[in-house]
């Protein structure tokens, strides 16, 4: 590849440290909240649940509330980071994020319609999922040129579809004033009521979508040399682009439908990983999954223990400055 890799051993060391960080964050996040549990108690509660003992007292909070919430954080964080990395690769655009093609505004509109119309709460993620996939389909249809999907047209179509859908969402919010707060909570991202059933619903999409993207790592690397070169090296560029878009949209749509629109994770995590691990997609995507998972769980921990209260606010408020600092540091070195 054109990208010289750092010594393999250094990569392994960093990756092992990241896995340890993820596990530590999980134990910490399961331990902290309205009821404070020491790491030992967390492990004890986890063990009691796994050994099939009856859950009582704090074990209920650990198993039924915090653990599904934390697992959902890992899954969604990983998902957003992998999809962001894949989009940045396939569009060769550092500003790409998983919401580029209108997934978020589609999901936002679907959820808003459900909330304003007073549909049962359980059906709202389904409405969001359907609308998100519909939005991406419209974007793809608008961007199509014969059998090709040129990146610039895709990005432009995505931006336009996103703006139109957001305007419609705003219109609905103004019509249903008394439910505005609920819509706002959704559009700022919330892991609050994530239960095991939600995790089980999102997981297949996430595994399938991210699995496909990670499997396409080598092809994405080749694509960085430009469409022409990639084609001459035997990469079916158009099919690759379409496959990445579909896989990423499916995974993102499922995540967004259940936890709302969480900004910034999909944008900055791949960049952070690129700074430390290099731009090789076969490494970049799986490592992004680890870091994305850990970061989102941390952000959600801050969201539920501080007045920031919405995970999307935390990721953007703290993620932005952190990323700028990282960029400046990288330049000074």
């Amino acid at each position, binding site marked *: 590849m054109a990208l010289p890799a750092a010594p393999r051993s250094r990569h392994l060391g960093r990756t092992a440290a990241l896995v340890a960080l993820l596990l530590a964050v999980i134990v910490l996040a399961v331990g902290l*909240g*309205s*009821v404070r549990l020491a790491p030992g108690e967390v492990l004890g509660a986890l063990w009691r649940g796994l050994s099939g003992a009856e859950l009582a007292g704090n074990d*209920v*909070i650990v198993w*039924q*509330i*915090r653990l*599904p919430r934390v697992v959902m954080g890992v899954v969604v964080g990983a998902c957003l980071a992998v999809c962001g990395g894949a989009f940045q690769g396939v569009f060769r655009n550092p500003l790409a994020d998983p919401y580029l093609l209108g997934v978020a505004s589609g999901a936002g509109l679907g959820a808003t319609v459900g909330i304003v119309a007073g549909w049962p*709460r*359980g059906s709202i993620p389904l409405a969001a999922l359907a609308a998100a996939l519909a939005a991406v389909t419209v974007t793809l249809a608008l961007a199509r040129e014969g059998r090709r999907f040129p990146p610039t047209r895709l990005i432009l179509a995505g931006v336009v579809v996103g703006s139109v859908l957001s305007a419609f969402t705003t219109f609905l919010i*103004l019509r249903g*004033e008394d*439910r505005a*707060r*609920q819509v706002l*909570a959704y559009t700022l991202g*919330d892991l*609050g*009521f*994530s*239960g*095991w059933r939600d995790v089980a619903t999102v997981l297949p999409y996430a595994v399938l979508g991210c699995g496909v993207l990670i499997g396409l790592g080598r092809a994405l690397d080749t694509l960085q040399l430009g469409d022409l070169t990639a084609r001459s090296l035997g990469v079916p560029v158009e099919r690759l682009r379409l496959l990445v878009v579909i896989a990423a949209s499916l995974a993102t749509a499922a995540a967004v439908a259940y936890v709302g629109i969480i900004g910034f994770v999909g944008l900055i995590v791949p960049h952070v990983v690129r700074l430390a691990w290099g731009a090789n997609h076969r490494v970049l995507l799986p490592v992004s999954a680890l870091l994305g998972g850990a970061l989102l769980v941390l952000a959600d921990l801050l969201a*539920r*223990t501080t007045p920031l*209260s*919405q995970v999307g606010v935390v990721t953007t408020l703290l993620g932005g400055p952190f990323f700028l600092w990282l960029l400046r540091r990288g330049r000074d070195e």
Partner: protein
Amino acid sequence: MHKRLSLIPLALLPLALALGAGTAGAAPYPLTLTDDLGRRVTVRAEPKRIVSLLPSTTETLCAVGACDRLVGVDTFSDFPQAVTRLPKVGGLYDPDIEKIVALRPDLVLVSKYGKLEGPLTQAGVTVLAVNPETYDEVFSKTLLLGRIVNREAQAKTLVLNMKKDIARVEILTKNAVRKPLTYVEVDPAPYSVGPNSFMGVLLSKAGARNIIPASLGDFPKVDPEFVVKANPALMLGLDLKTARSRPGWNSIQAVKTGRVLDIPRDLNLILGRPGPRLPQALRGLARLVHPELFR
């Protein structure tokens, strides 16, 4: 209850009118005061053509006998019956300024959250922001509105009657043997109410103990596990099915005993309206908290 509410003011009307007539001689105009936006405003003469942009203000004006001065209301004003026939001039976010001006009002009463005062003042209309938010403000703003429309005596009578009706409920709830630990959900995000908010005060007067401490603020977004840990015996504002479907909430006492009650639409409407129907709102809430006291 409805009957009594409407009969008492009626019985006092002659007296009130006499009082009103008594003060009318010393008509308080021009009346200069500071409104809820912190603006100094002068009401030059007794307002005869009023537009109200808050449902609670509309109700208060009618309750002090100034209903016939209203020439327009906002889209949410629906009580009393008489105001439903008035021209609607839009809501908080979509007021129709031209329509308001076309009604040639001599006073427009707005909330402090709209942005109407600028354009309307420029159009030469007197604009006052009167916006009760806390429990105590319901009474002080009622008296203020009474002064503004020269119905001061009626406003005093109204406040007196409201306090009497509230006392009737409080006598029952104050001495309740057990005051259930209660969680109120005003929005499924979930948002709840702090003890110092309008609804929080009504909740404690209804004989319930709020699980939300004052330190969380008036409208806090609540961490679901906080509710599980607090283990309330009563939950208001959601239904049992919803509560059961939330991860871990099955272990809450209120869910186990089925004391999870949606607030009926009518009651919810007046609970969100800091106006003259406050005693009715309190009674409705107390009925939900202590059904045994209201048989």
